[in-house]
């Protein structure tokens, strides 16, 4: 398998009584709680952590996009990827993903991803997402068009990357007289595309059909729920007439490694609760605006998703039992991840070490222990036979130094 370190870049300085005084960390969570001087430290610290992952041999680093919230501070993941493009040399830069639905100019996404791909010598993975419900409130995009806009923007971007311009695009939501993106992507035919999804049948079927990588969301949810999603994706691939490649199954998960199991839990737990109780705190309305998912899939997943939210739990035993995160000594984490990989077939592991407000020194220690004592053991698991015609990592290596 390949291992890609994920960062949410959460705001770690919410007041201690946040959960008592706020019903959401999103959309209307007042930005007076943000402090730019601390923000300066936070951004640079988080970027340091991703650069460390590159130095430690992770296959990639991941950033993502959220707006107007304390949960994740990357309204523009492409800016973060641009910072990383020049400070890393080997790791894939995974934008996980761009929220295509929010932009009346999806060509901007096509342009920026192509820029990053060219600058980095073909290290970019283009994640593409519909976006959480919150973003539709924050960006005033009508959520009843979420799926239509996503699919149309996606088709437009891929066509802009792969077909010679200029050509016109006359869609339902987007119209461009002249599609003619400069620069064109470094990887041919285009950067790999990953699609995160939380189990909705329509997304699973679509990703299977497109043969993209499906990243199982939400990252913090009961293991059984996520394993069922991975299984549904594999079944969808079979219906499409092929067996899913391991790399097509992406698995984001909170991971923390320390010297012993007891120490890991002791160090990690308070920060996990900061995440579960504060950052994930949200109004049901913001999570699920009308039309964001189809009525049928909303009926299917609503209950399971609600019940599985980590914020509904109060004891570490429940979290551990539910398999929300993988926390422990190197041996424990190694065994558990091996077990998960064997069971789900995942070949794209996306660990998130800095959950909630885990401080820098602990994140650093955990990442280093993971890289040294866990990652090497995972490499040989779920390895795909070489793919034909698909752009791979390491393109930069073939360039003159």
């Amino acid at each position, binding site marked *: 398998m390949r291992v890609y370190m994920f960062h949410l870049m959460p705001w770690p300085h919410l007041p201690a009584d946040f959960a008592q005084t706020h019903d959401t960390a999103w959309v209307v969570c007042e930005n007076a709680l943000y402090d730019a001087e601390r923000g300066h430290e936070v951004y640079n610290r988080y970027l340091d952590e991703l650069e460390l992952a590159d130095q430690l041999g992770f296959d990639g680093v991941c950033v993502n996009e959220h707006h107007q919230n304390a949960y994740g501070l990357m309204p523009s993941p492409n800016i973060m990827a641009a910072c990383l493009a020049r400070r890393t040399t080997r790791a894939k830069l995974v934008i996980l993903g761009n929220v295509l639905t929010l932009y009346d100019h999806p060509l901007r996404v096509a342009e920026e991803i192509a820029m990053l791909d060219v600058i980095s010598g073909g290290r970019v993975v283009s994640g593409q997402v519909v976006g959480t419900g919150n973003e539709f409130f924050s960006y005033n995009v009508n959520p009843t068009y979420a799926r239509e806009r996503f699919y149309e923007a996606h088709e437009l971007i891929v066509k802009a990357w792969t077909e010679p311009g200029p050509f016109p695009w006359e869609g339902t939501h987007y119209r461009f007289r002249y599609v003619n993106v400069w620069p064109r992507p470094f990887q041919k035919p285009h950067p790999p595309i990953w699609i995160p999804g939380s189990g909705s049948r329509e997304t699973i079927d679509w990703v299977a059909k497109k043969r993209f990588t499906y990243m199982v969301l939400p990252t913090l949810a009961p293991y059984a729920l996520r394993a069922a999603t991975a299984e549904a994706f594999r079944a969808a691939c079979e219906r499409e007439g092929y067996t899913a490649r391991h790399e097509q199954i992406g698995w984001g998960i909170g991971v923390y490694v320390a010297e012993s199991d007891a120490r890991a839990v002791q160090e990690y737990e308070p920060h996990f609760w900061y995440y579960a109780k504060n950052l994930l705190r949200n109004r049901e309305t913001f999570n699920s605006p009308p*039309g964001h998912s189809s009525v049928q899939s909303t009926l299917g997943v609503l209950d399971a998703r609600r019940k599985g939210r980590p914020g509904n739990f109060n004891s570490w035993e429940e979290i551990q039992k539910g398999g929300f995160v993988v926390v422990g000594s190197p041996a424990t984490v190694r065994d558990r991840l091996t077990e998960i990989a064997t069971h789900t077939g995942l070949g794209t592991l996306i660990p998130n070490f800095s959950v909630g407000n885990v401080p820098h020194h602990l994140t650093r220690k955990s990442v280093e222990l993971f890289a040294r004592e866990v990652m090497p053991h995972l490499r040989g698991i779920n390895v795909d036979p070489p793919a034909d015609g698909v752009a791979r990592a390491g393109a930069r290596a073939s360039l003159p130094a």
Partner: protein
Amino acid sequence: MMTESVQDVGGRATRIVRSGRGRPLLWLHDTTGNRWTQGHEALVRRHEVIAPSLPGFDDSTTLGQIDRTEDVGFWLLDLWDALGLERPVLLGCGLGGWIAADFAARYPERLGRLVLVDAYGLQVDGALAADEFALTPPMLRPLVFAEPEASLAREWLPDAQPPERVESTLHARVAAARLAWQFPYCPKLRGRLARAKVPALILWGAQDRLVPTAHAHAYAASLPDARVVVLPGAGHYPWLETPDRFAEEVERFLG
């Protein structure tokens, strides 16, 4: 006697509930969908109340190209044809009021009279309607009901819909959001209302904190022939909270 039928309206299967005898009164529902209420019932003594489901509200997968109130206006023209309507009373509540006002500005000759009830549709400085899609039922009840703790409020807008209403509520919310997401108005409507040359009644719940009464007065100031009646003891749904007063005012206006 109340009857319910599904009729083809311009190629759209449309559920139409009707009851009563007398002058036809077309009732356009609000964002909660086509539900027969005490307010409807109170009007059937002297009117034939015709309550169609607006496009997509019963099944949001049929929304198709419905995109704005103008599109619903074209569907209303089809409805006029399908039902053979001649200058009926057009009564619209909330979102339905916006659609009715827009229709009246475009096709005043098709209407007998116009009744707008706590209507969306206008941009009023300093009186932006609250965001009904952002607020949970417990947050919304005090905005839309004069008596938010009454059993009526809890029944109409429960914290969680009973199982048999979950799916229909989701469909109605999707159709409502298609038209009324975040800014349930058209900035151009006010300037167009001078064309709505039809007698109009603007009915408003005194305690409507979703669409403030400033909107009632803005409608009255822009329509050529309108008067405002503000109903005490009612919020955003006067036909639910004070159905008798509501019907009394409508009937007085219709003469």
